């Protein structure tokens, strides 16, 4: 099957030809199959933000290309514009970008730009608001007078209302407290399940991404350093630390327990897994 997104030899250089020249990403090759939940991690400045802005054509590759369903997204101006509706990108702190007079109109901004019918727009706004738990009573309120958490939900709904096949979120939980984080992430998971869309989650939180993603990609110095499922990635603790990244606490405990001589798999990365591993060790200890 054609991957929904394919990236070939993607390189991006900022301010080429000036003393400020900076290579942000270099020779990236990636295939993302339809429906995958992908975690993207990397230190600030590792190139991950530059990378995701290529997937919906906001940035033009210096060299290489991005294919959406097998076709180059830069083949024409129209194609680039169309792909923005198919590949929805939620920026960091999206609540700072709200501008409409009412919540309803802000969520409807994307669908309106798609030139959809009023009825279709209405359906999508309600559906998107439902995904992120924005009640209809808020529709006629000004987004600017709502709380920070609600604003962020509305901003995310604004992208979901385009019904993207690929949803990219750049640190959607930044600055939120644990309960706010949890609820935004469960919104994303629900959208993933209900729509079958591909999700790319960019985050610093290893715990979150380990728990949710099927595949993890680590960016380092503008290149893909690791590309593996979560169960394989965190046992490479030293490598991750050398890239300035953390490992989940559970993995850190497991690794320390191994050093202390207990036979625990280094591939655990959630509290649940670690708990079960420890409990089964205890069972064995009891038997003998």
């Amino acid at each position: 099957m054609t991957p929904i997104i394919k990236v070939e030899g993607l390189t991006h250089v900022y301010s080429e030809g000036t003393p400020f020249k900076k290579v942000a990403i270099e020779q990236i090759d990636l295939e993302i199959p339809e429906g995958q939940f992908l975690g993207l991690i990397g230190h600030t400045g590792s190139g991950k933000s530059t990378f995701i802005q290529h997937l919906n054509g906001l940035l033009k590759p210096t060299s290489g290309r991005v294919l959406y369903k097998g076709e180059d997204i830069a083949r024409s101006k129209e194609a680039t514009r169309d792909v923005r509706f198919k590949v929805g990108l939620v920026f960091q702190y999206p609540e700072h970008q709200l501008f409409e007079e009412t919540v309803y109109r802000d969520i409807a901004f994307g669908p309106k730009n798609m030139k959809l019918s009023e009825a279709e727009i209405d359906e999508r706004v309600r559906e998107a608001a439902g995904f992120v738990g924005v009640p209809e009573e808020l529709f006629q309120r000004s987004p600017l007078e709502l709380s920070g958490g609600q604003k962020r939900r509305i901003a995310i709904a604004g992208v979901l209302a385009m019904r993207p096949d690929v949803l990219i979120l750049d640190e959607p939980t930044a600055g939120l407290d644990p309960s706010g984080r949890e609820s935004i992430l469960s919104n994303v998971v629900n959208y993933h399940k209900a729509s079958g869309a591909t999700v790319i989650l960019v985050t610093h939180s290893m715990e979150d991404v380990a728990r949710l993603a099927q595949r993890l990609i680590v960016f380092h110095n503008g290149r893909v350093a690791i590309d593996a499922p979560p169960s394989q990635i965190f046992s490479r603790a030293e490598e991750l630390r050398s890239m300035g990244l953390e490992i989940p606490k559970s993995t850190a405990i497991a690794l320390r327990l191994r050093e202390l001589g207990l036979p625990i798999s280094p591939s655990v990365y959630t509290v649940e897994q670690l708990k079960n591993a420890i409990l089964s060790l205890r069972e064995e200890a009891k038997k003998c």
Partner: protein
Amino acid sequence: MTPIIKTQNLTFFYPETDGEPALNQIDLEIAPGSFVVILGHNGSGKSTLAKQFNAVLLPSGGKVYVFGMDTSNEDLVIQIRRTVGMVFQNPDNQIVANVVEDDVAFAPENLGVPPEEIRRRVDEALKQVGMSEFALHAPHLLSGGQKQRVAIAGVIAMQPDCIVLDEPTAMLDPSGRREVVETVKTLCREKGITVVLITHHMDEAIDADRLIVMSGGKIIADGKPAKIFSQVEALKSQGLAVPETTQLLWELNQQGMNLPLEALSVEECAQVIAACLR
């Protein structure tokens, strides 16, 4: 010993909201030289409380004293603010000047310190936060963690007795967070500066001398971090999480093991589990 900050029956209402107080009858004393973390979810009143500590907000009822100075006395405002410095969440919105060292000089300039003395303080402050080599850089080109360290230097150049940091790490990535937390810890341990750190990251509370948990404008727990986090059920009922280490130990205990919940760090946690399984 005189507490550096003392609140008496402190109550506060935001003028634009009616009804619920943002702070509800808070009595608190903070000892000089201690490292205090205030934890709570959004809207718990933790930031509002912090802003009372140096007269950015004034009590609607009750009193706040900084070394015995009443914060509602307008004549003492400058004196109070140079005693209790404050660092905010967004590093971009608290840096005044175009050059790092000029920004650090801002507070002593306002206090009328002589030029040579300002120079000395600026160099010293930048050294303490490990930003000396960036003295002549433009702040907008620094990383988030570096900007916050500049903001901290800008506060210590006032030579305050206490620094209050209002969610200084909320907008930073993990390495930036570590930079900031390490910096304030060092200031507390080596310079004896009292640190009040407001945060919603459990991990930052682990090394604190004292942890205060807020919810609904009230203090719901106050004590040593290990003691507080071991009250897992109580915290969960308030919608608060506990560190992963505590979570693990607690879940294991639910399965019939008998582990001490006070083991907060990864090392302690691994040690108690290993000891139990051997």
